[in-house]
């Protein structure tokens, strides 16, 4: 009940109306949703990652999102392949955790084992599924990871593993300890989380001394907070509100698409799928319902992804051709008049409902019988993941996020016949995915590229729509440029003060 005393006290104390929390070099960041936990091993969740990643906890490697340096060292200074299946990481020296203990190889081993433990459900462990990885400490600053089968992108995977001290128990913690430049100083549930700068950080001292995170689910409120000076950064606001010169847009690594279940007629017919693709005027969305800068997608991954195929071309809007294809299919006895259910998720992205309404309207125009149903997240999951509802042809509108730089995180789940959200079951695709996963270097690039082309041009696997852009509102007192990674992390060290 301290709020009541506070209420009384404030009447005397408050003189400044506008609480612009600007203590020296502190920033306030307003996010859409409060994290349930501030648990390093859950940092792949965007609401946790934005607070934890690179601020409280660090990883061995780090993907460069501002330049094109690729994978950069962080807690590991270098790494190499010892043999086909063993990666060796040389760790940075002189690093300490925020609890004062020194960082060494045992911490890395513990962190990896903790993340994979079946006593807690750490999200990042899913990236190691199906591969056996055994860490072994070589010396204090050297650790080996032995994998079976070979795992060419292990260093990339290490950019996801947050390192915690070896004393960390195998249960979810609310007081994270990491090697990062900041430490969690307070957490008022429902209100705010505050990080303070550490003095004994191994790297360069960031400019921001402390960061307060506030949580508002309504995007226009978030935008308003930056406008009124109550917050300095709102990493994601609605495109509709992004009208001031405080607003920056950034590709947010999300790709929207309509997943097609190829096993149900008439969607098992390639002409029908092609007609779906041709019947949507993607250009019309850009700059209207969706923000300027939205890119039309030819793959489920953004162009910066390894192996993205520049030769695949988006299918231009061609309603006549779509109609013709449908006629053709119909003539061959394909039941093109069957009602197709289009499932969209409410509030999936700003303008989601309008987007799906427009798509429905466009598809109806070319002769499809489409019924739109907007559902909440739990129901969406029922449609999106296997086992599928199969009593009628269904298009599931979904958004996929992969800013990891390698398509392996997407391809297996979305296109391999065992993938939980795969709409296709195609032997050639399966083969390409498996081979690419095991490959390295140029071969890997080539195989992914072939797969991208095959999916888009030959299989017409799905209706790819857009690579989305996000909008951030940045207050006048700070200097921050959002990047493709802003969706999943927000390193305070990248924020400058004016």
């Amino acid at each position, binding site marked *: *009940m301290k*709020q*009541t005393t*506070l*209420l009384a006290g*404030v*009447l005397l104390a*408050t003189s400044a*109306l*506008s*609480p612009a929390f600007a203590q020296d070099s502190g920033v306030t960041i307003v996010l859409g949703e409060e994290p*349930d*936990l501030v*648990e390093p091993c859950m940092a*792949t*969740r965007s609401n946790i990652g934005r607070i934890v990643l690179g601020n409280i906890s660090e990883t061995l490697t780090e993907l460069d999102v501002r330049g094109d340096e690729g994978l950069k060292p962080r807690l590991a200074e270098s790494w190499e392949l010892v043999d086909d299946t063993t990666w060796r990481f040389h760790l940075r020296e002189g690093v300490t955790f925020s609890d004062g203990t020194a960082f060494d190889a045992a911490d890395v081993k513990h962190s990896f084992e903790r993340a994979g433990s*079946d*006593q*807690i*459900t750490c*999200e990042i*462990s*899913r990236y190691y*599924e*199906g591969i056996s990885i055994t860490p072994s400490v070589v010396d204090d600053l050297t650790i080996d990871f032995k994998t079976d089968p070979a795992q060419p992108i292990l260093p990339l995977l290490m950019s996801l593993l947050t390192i915690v001290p070896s004393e960390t128990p195998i*249960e*979810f913690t*609310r007081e994270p300890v990491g090697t990062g430049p900041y430490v969690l100083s307070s957490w008022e*549930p*429902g*209100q*705010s989380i505050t990080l303070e700068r550490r003095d004994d950080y191994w790297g360069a001292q960031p400019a921001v001394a402390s960061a307060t995170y*506030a*949580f*508002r*689910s*309504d995007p*226009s*409120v978030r935008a*308003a*907070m930056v*406008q*009124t000076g*109550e917050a300095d950064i709102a990493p994601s606001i609605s495109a509709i509100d992004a009208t001031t010169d405080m607003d920056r847009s950034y590709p947010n690594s999300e790709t929207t698409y309509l997943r097609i279940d190829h096993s149900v007629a008439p969607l098992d017919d390639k002409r029908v799928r092609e007609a779906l693709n041709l019947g949507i005027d993607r250009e019309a969305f850009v700059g209207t319902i969706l923000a300027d800068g939205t890119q039309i997608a030819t793959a489920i991954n953004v162009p910066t992804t390894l192996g993205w195929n520049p030769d695949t071309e988006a299918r231009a809007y061609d309603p006549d051709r779509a109609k013709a294809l449908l006629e053709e299919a119909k003539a061959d006895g394909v039941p093109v008049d069957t009602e197709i259910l289009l499932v969209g998720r409410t509030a999936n992205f700003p303008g989601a409902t309008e987007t799906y309404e427009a798509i429905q309207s466009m598809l109806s125009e070319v002769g499809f019988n489409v019924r739109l149903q907007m559902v*909440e*997240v*739990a*129901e969406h*999951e*029922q449609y*999106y*993941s296997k086992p599928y509802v199969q009593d009628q042809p269904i298009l599931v509108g979904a958004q996929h996020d992969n800013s990891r730089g390698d398509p392996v*995180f997407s391809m297996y*789940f979305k296109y391999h016949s065992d993938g*939980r*959200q795969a709409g296709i079951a195609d032997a050639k695709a399966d083969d390409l995915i498996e081979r690419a996963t095991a490959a390295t270097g140029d071969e890997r690039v080539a195989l992914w590229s072939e797969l991208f082309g095959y999916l888009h041009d030959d299989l017409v696997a799905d209706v790819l729509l857009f690579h989305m852009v996000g909008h951030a509102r940045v207050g006048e007192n700070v200097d921050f440029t959002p990047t493709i990674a802003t969706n999943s992390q927000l390193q305070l060290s990248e924020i400058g003060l004016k």
Partner: protein
Amino acid sequence: MKKMLGKRAVSSFVSLMVLIVLVFFLSRLTGDPAALYLPVDASEAMRENFREIHGLNDPVLVQFGRYLSDLVQLDFGDSLRKARPAIDVVLESFVWTLQLALITMALVTVAAIIVGSIAAFNVGRPFDRFASVLSLIGASAPDFWIAIVGIVLFSVNFGWLPTSGTGTVWHWILPICVLFIRPFGLILQIVRGSMINALGSPYVKTARAKGVKNRPVIFVHTLRNAMLPVITVIGDQAAALLNGAVVVETIFGFPGVGKLMIDSILQRDFNVILAAIMVTAIAIFIMNILIDIAYALLDPRIRA
């Protein structure tokens, strides 16, 4: 009175039990929390593991038995998502809701009684009309709409108030104003009607025949009688607020139990849902008792 309270307690307990059973079983029909908790590309093994850790693989009846046996030891279980005792999570946010509800209802009650009484004394005159129409418009507008317009106007355009959140007394003004509108309109109407009735009652005639002045006639003789029907409505409205003001809490980022409840419902965090329902139900029960006591204090005929 004591006997009645005892009866009330028993019947409320029964209702609460029925409620728990219903919520427990029905909420488990609304899908697998594992699917929501874990990312879409999590493997079946991970899901299985999640269910195992949280005991979701057992038959529902076994789960219920376990829940009840924990409950008698006042263990409400842990939140699936927050890895903390559910009751802690709920109480934390309930404190906010309680304050919000109490402050709002206190303001509403005072304002509605004053304005309603004045309106009743001036039936059909401009003040009465104006108060009625204004309260009607307020009560007819969707609250999220009012909330956002309020933020745009008072925070963004005028810069008078903070947009949202908690912290200073100023942060409370907008949420309270938005919450204020609907119960105010309703209670105002009840006060007005009840006052008009009471003003026409024989004892007012007596008071006037005794030479009592207008003000005591209204505020001493009439008001106390007119409050009786009003109290019930105040109780109902306060109960609604105690259940959480989801919309207002969501928009203003107010960490109350309403927002907690909708989040837990959407995420299928069963233990939190149950704990929240129990806490609010008990609070409402206590409030009903207070209402009964207030009733008895106001009306000697009920005390017997």
